[in-house]
Every structure is written in C-alpha cells, then in structure tokens.
C-alpha cells in the first residue's frame, strides 16, 4: 500500500497542529516519526485513521493514489489501515473474543466459522504468548500495559492490514515483551512484504527491533529533517534542540558529535 500525505493542515479547536505536512510512504517501507512532546505525532496517526475530533483544514491523504478524506474510520480500516493505540481503551461488558470476532467479520465482509476463528486466534495468541484466558475477559480490562499492547498486535494479526501505524508501541512493554511483539511484527512484514509501516516513538530501543528505512523529525507541525536509521541514535544523544534553527544546518555531522 502506498500512502501519500499532501500539504495536510490540521486544527483542533482553532489550534494548528499540522501545518502543510507532507510524507510519502511507499509499500514495503518502514518510516519513523520522532519529535518532542506535543508536536502532533499522535494527531497525525489519528488523522490518518479518520478521527473526527480533528479538523482537516486543507491537504489530502492518498492511498494508492486515491483520496481517503471522505472515508469514515471503519472504511479506512477495511481498506487495510491499522492503528495500534498508545493507550488502548478498556471496554467493560464485551469480551475480547466477541470483539475480535466482530472485527474479523466486518473487515472480511463474511462470517467466519467459529472453528476457523478459534483456530486462528489460538495460533496468533500462542505466537504472542498471550494468555488465552485473556480472550474471555472484557476488552483490556485489568490488563497490564504490556498485555494491552500484545492485544493490539493480536488484533493487527487478525485484521491482516496493509499499512500499520504503531503509536508508541514500546510504552508499557518490558524488554522481553518488546522483543516478542516486535518479532511478531517482523514476521508479519516478512509474510506481507508490501505492507507499509509508520512508527511513532521517542526511543531507539524499538528501532533496534524493527529497523526503519527513514526517520523523520516532526516539529512545528511539519517534517524538518529526514535521515536513515542512524538519525534516531543521534537524536537520542543530542535531543531535538539541534533542530531549533530550522533544517539547513542540522545535517552537519558536527552537530551530532
């Protein structure tokens, strides 16, 4: 799946969050967005997913050349866009398995037999070392931070998306769980080489597990610098202050020494 974000301007309650934001993600590529708190990284993920709380003032999001601006959230998900939430919500009274079955039925547009569903869920759960008891508990209720993130990736595996957005996947995951979750994502990407990925993160530990093709720095609502995976290491050493003067002088190697 190819994603092209063109001159996107987004406002929330008259506050401009994204300002002429541009980004191209070709199929099979892994992109990372980094940036200080509050610059609009999570906003970007929600806008791509179609959250109506954000006002898209101008610009467009194209998927395989077609605008998705008029599609609602579920239509975008059916197209193959998946957002792994930074803080997955808890829903009391609905079991995880019921949730999974409803989403699989709606996305695949056909009823999946109970046998096939259980078989598929069991395989995905085992690969994630996700306790099967969790499937019968209410959605994310009393789950630990790590269990919630595993549940997000379980949903991802069941939905088989073509474009994955990972919003701070590493928060709440311990070292072993992060490795396990990332190896599941890497395996999925191996099996689906055309799948594109957008990672939003603050830390490099996630990027050691899922190696990106491009790292972008987001500031003042737009991308101010793009580099390869080594840029993340440099940011971790020097912080974001080096980008304060704009994009012209940050490429100098001395900045990061």
């Amino acid at each position, binding site marked *: 799946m190819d994603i092209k974000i063109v001159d996107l301007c987004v406002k929330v309650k008259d506050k401009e969050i994204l300002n002429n934001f541009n980004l191209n993600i070709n199929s099979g590529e892994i992109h990372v967005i980094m940036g200080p708190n509050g610059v609009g990284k999570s906003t970007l993920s929600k806008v791509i997913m179609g959250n109506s709380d954000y006002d898209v003032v101008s610009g467009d999001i194209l998927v395989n050349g077609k605008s998705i601006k008029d599609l609602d959230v*579920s239509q975008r998900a059916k197209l193959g866009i998946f957002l792994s939430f930074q803080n997955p919500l808890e829903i009391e009274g*609905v079991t995880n398995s*019921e*949730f999974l079955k409803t989403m699989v039925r*709606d996305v695949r547009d056909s009823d999946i037999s109970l046998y096939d569903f259980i078989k598929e869920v069991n395989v995905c759960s085992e690969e994630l070392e996700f306790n099967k008891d969790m499937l019968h508990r209410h959605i994310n209720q009393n789950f630990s931070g790590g269990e919630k993130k595993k549940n997000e990736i379980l949903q991802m595996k069941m*939905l088989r998306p073509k474009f994955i957005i990972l919003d701070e996947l590493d928060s709440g995951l311990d070292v072993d769980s992060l490795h396990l979750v990332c190896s599941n994502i890497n395996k999925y990407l191996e099996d689906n080489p055309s799948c594109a990925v957008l990672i939003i993160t603050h830390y490099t530990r996630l990027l050691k597990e899922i190696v990106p093709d491009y790292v972008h720095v987001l500031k003042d609502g737009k991308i101010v610098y793009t580099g390869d995976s080594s840029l993340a290491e440099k940011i971790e050493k020097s912080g974001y202050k080096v980008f304060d003067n704009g994009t012209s002088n940050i490429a100098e190697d001395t900045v990061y020494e």
Partner: protein
Amino acid sequence: MNKIVVSKNNIKEEKIIYLDDDSEIYYDDVDVCLTLVVSKPICIFEYIRNSKIDISYDIMSCVTINRFGIDSEIVSTFNINKELAKVKCYYSCFNLNDHKYVVNINHLKEKTESFVLSHGVNVSDKKLDFLINTNVVSDSFDVVSNQDSKILLLKDSNCDIKPNLCINNDDVVANHSAYIGSFNKDLLFYLMSRGISYDDACKLIVKSFVFSDMDITFLQRGLILEEINKYWR
C-alpha cells in the same frame, strides 16, 4: 434455583415472598407491590417487562440483585436491617416512554454496605429519570454506601439523575457519580478503527453498558441479548 413468574394473572394485592436460594423473578406486564425477605446470601436475577412495580427488600444477609428492565416504572426499597448485611444491585434498562426508576437504600443497622449501579439506555425521546436515595440512620455507624448512575441517550431527550444522600452518622463512607450523555466518541473511534461499522460499534457499546458488572448466567445473558438485537440488527 427458584423461578418466580409474576404475570398478569397474578393477584395484585401486596405479597411477601421469602427467598432462601438463588432466584429468577420475571415480571411481565404487571402492576404489583411485593416484599421480598432475604435471610441467606443469594443472587437474584430480575427481568421486568412493561410493568409498574413496587418492590421492597428486607435484607438480613448478603444479596446481589441483577435487574434488567424494559420500559418499566420501578420503585425499589432496600431495608438493610441486620449488622454486616450487604446489597449490590446492578440495574440496566431500555426505556421507550416516560418512566422513573426510584431506589431507596435504607441502612438501618451498623456495618452495612450497599452498592447501586444503574444504567439506562434511553431509546426514545421520552424522559427517563433516576432517583437514588441513600438514607443512613443515626445509629448506623461504619456504613459504606456507593451509587453510580448513567443514562445513555440514543436520541435528544431530557433525562435526570438525582442522587440524594441523607447521612445521619459521621462514620460513613458514601460516594455517588452520575453521567448522562451520548456514545463515548473515543470508544466509537477505537472500535471503528478495527473495521467495525458504526452500527456494530454502537451495539458493542450498548452491550458493554448494559452488561457491565452484571453477574448472570449464559441463559440470562441471552435473554437480554434478544432485547439488544431488536434495536441493532
């Protein structure tokens, strides 16, 4: 398990029923006044359809009541009249006409506890009112009383929740919360981001809202699901 059916054919005069085992009570299209006496720890499932009922519980033990109502007017009084007795009442309902749901919780002895959770889905533009009155008498110390009320609006309507706490003792923990509003936008976004259609997402939220903490059997759950399925698919 006891199964008690109060239907049109039942006499309308005031009745007293002694419950000493888990029970299912079905009220179907009746106008009735009942007193139920509970002296053992039990769990009760109440299914109330198109009825006007006035139920009074004399509670001398620990009792959990899972109550589901469809378009009914209910007044229920819990007289907690034995030390260490507890009542948990989970109520969910679908409302179509102007109705009131009144709960009076009377802590008549010390060291008693109550938790009243009331969730109403107002399907129409009619008025649904919750009036939850907690009364702790001056002799009742070390009492815990909590109430949580929510009304989910499916159409524009004017609903009310009135939590009244009348506490006459210093040694009491009492809390209340109230919410009236439409579907939670964040929940809708989360569910729809998984490819679930708007209608199915609403249905899941209603299910979540109706079942919440209810401790019911598979069959009892099925009965309520039948009702939910009438409005969504």
